[in-house]
């Protein structure tokens, strides 16, 4: 092992200057994140203000979003965002967990690398590709399948379609991170559990998942964040109706999809301000999701891992 003397780093004047410069650069980089955040918040809120002012509380409680009536209420869009993201999570998380456990615990080492490469590749496909595949390839097939189960009025472009396409998108991300988390679980835990005669299932549920739960929660939340904010893929398949309906085979809209759809509109009126208001709402919702994730992680940390 090579021992580096502290003097060689900070002893010389050059070394000290370099150290100072490095601190300064990282400080600026760190502050720039805060400045960027503050700038984004200030810009979106100030641009959205005329709409929030004119719509009042109706901006949150109304289900009508209409440039013809000049009424902009986000409730149906919030509903669409939440429903599509939940569908995506319900569909993607079990598969992602399965994939990552298969790669780390079940599959032989020889095939691990190619599978991991494919998962990472999937995670890097631009979202518009998923959207186009969903709209042009799956739209018709989904409509046929939906109509078998949900009756003749089910639509190929619907909240359910958007949820499924979103699950395709977030599954590789969740799987990729979960796999890395599980790979970092110390080998002794596994070996100890196997030594006690645990089956593979018992090893996974008693030794691996409890240790990895923080990271897995983080992975799910990252996936949720992407699902909440996904724009183009959803806009292409969600059907763009503005309604709250329990029937998820009907078209709907999300906050992000309506921003994509309407931003090129006549535009000189107040709708652009209202769309910016949706941006602020999305920002707040993402913030809440992140904080909730932190709380969950903190709780599970206390509960699951014996000190």
């Amino acid at each position: 092992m090579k021992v580096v003397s502290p003097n060689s780093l900070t002893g010389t004047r050059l070394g000290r200057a370099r150290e100072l410069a490095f601190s300064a650069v990282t400080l600026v980089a760190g502050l720039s994140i805060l400045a960027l955040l503050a700038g984004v918040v200030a810009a979106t809120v100030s641009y959205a203000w005329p709409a929030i002012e004119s719509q009042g509380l109706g901006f949150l409680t109304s289900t009508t979003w209409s440039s013809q009536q000049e009424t902009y209420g986000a409730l149906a869009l919030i509903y669409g965002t939440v429903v599509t993201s939940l569908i995506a999570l319900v569909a993607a998380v079990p598969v992602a967990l399965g994939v990552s456990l298969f790669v780390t615990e079940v599959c032989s080492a020889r095939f691990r690398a190619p599978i991991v490469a494919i998962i990472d590749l999937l995670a890097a496909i631009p979202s518009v590709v998923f959207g186009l595949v969903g709209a042009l390839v799956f739209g018709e097939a989904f409509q046929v399948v939906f109509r078998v189960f949900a009756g003749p009025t089910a639509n190929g472009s619907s909240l359910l379609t958007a949820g499924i396409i979103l699950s395709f998108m977030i599954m590789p991300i969740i799987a990729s991170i979960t796999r890395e988390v599980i790979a970092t679980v110390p080998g002794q835990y596994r070996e100890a559990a196997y030594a006690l005669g645990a089956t593979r299932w018992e090893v996974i549920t008693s030794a691996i998942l409890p240790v990895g739960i923080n990271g897995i929660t983080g992975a799910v939340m990252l996936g949720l964040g992407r699902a909440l904010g996904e724009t183009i893929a959803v806009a292409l398949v969600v059907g763009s109706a503005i309604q709250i309906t329990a029937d998820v085979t009907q078209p709907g809209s999300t906050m992000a999809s309506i921003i994509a759809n309407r931003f090129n509109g006549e535009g000189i009126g107040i709708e652009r301000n209202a769309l910016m208001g949706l941006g602020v709402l999305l920002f707040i919702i993402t913030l809440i999701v992140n904080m909730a994730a932190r709380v969950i992680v903190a709780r599970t940390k206390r509960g699951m891992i014996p000190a």
Partner: protein
Amino acid sequence: MQEIRARHRSQTVRVGLGAVLALLLVVSVACGNSTSPQGKQPTTTSLGNGTTADSNTGEVQSTGFNLADFAGLNANIKGSGSSFQQNYNLATIDLLHTVLPELKITYAGGGSGQGKSDLADGVVDFAGTDSLVKPEDAAKYNGQVLYFPTVVAPITVSYELDGVHELRLDGPALAQIFSAKITSWNDEAIAVLNPQTELPAIPITVCRRADASGTTTNFTKFLDAAGGADWPYGSSDTVDWPSGTQGAQGNGGVAACIAKKSGSIGYVDFSDAKAQGLAGALIQNSAGEYVEASLSGASAAVEGAVIGDDLTFDPINAPGSDAYPITSPTWIIVLDTQRDSTKAEALRALLSFILTDGQDVTFTQSLNYAPLPAELATRALAQIDQIKVG
């Protein structure tokens, strides 16, 4: 143990192969998608050569573009807006570029709304639009807006219905279909218009634009005019569609929405409907005739429309027994007062090219547009003089 490991291995191979196949499928579909819009682009090179040769030899006498007026013009102008006229604009710009190589013109789509606000903000030198500037927005422009009509084209009502080769619809029936009052193809309101045709008892899927669009403006204008009390939603670039209808992006998206689903109907611009090979309904015009969407029907609609002094006109539901009632106008709008004299000259070159050589009927038809009536083109050509520098 060995056996178990072997089984694992074969499972892994199978899973790995499946993933690779899935990936290939995604990639190939993605490639297919990315090439299809290009496939739709008109092949301008051959056209370009043809018409350029004509203008060099002076063969196109009736529409001649006077190249000498603009020889050596070196300028750079840009425009944005209507996607309805985009294919025409791009082909015309390419053609003009072959005779005036120093004149650089770009046209980005983005929709009529985008074009109008870009022109108001001074971001572009000209804008394409399928709808007029609202009176309350006129003050936002840095000068008076001049309208130059360029071409016209029909908006088709396309449908996908197995076994139905001819479908006749009138204004009220269309209004009821698009407002979701009629939900089944064998509804009495449709059947009574199509006594010869056996209509299937399947639900109607309405495909319409999700994004703000001039095509929506003009289509809903027709529903508003011909649908009467059956159309409560008015006319706008986005309307409050009933909740069961399916929104899709762009004319291409609506065309795909229709083509994919049996029992669907929607409105699509002529060139996208042709590209998808969609069947178009015969629409009853104001003279009571059922007319197929065609370029000659669109020309007839413009002949029947009243042209205003500012060259605005409304060919929707225009009189005339040959007129196709859902015909969309489209304009290039520019400000009458230009700051930069070279840019003003470039605008004059572009507009006079569009209104002369650009009106050649084989050229416009190859792009699925109809030319303006000669009289209107002449009036528009005269209006170019109103572009001043100041």
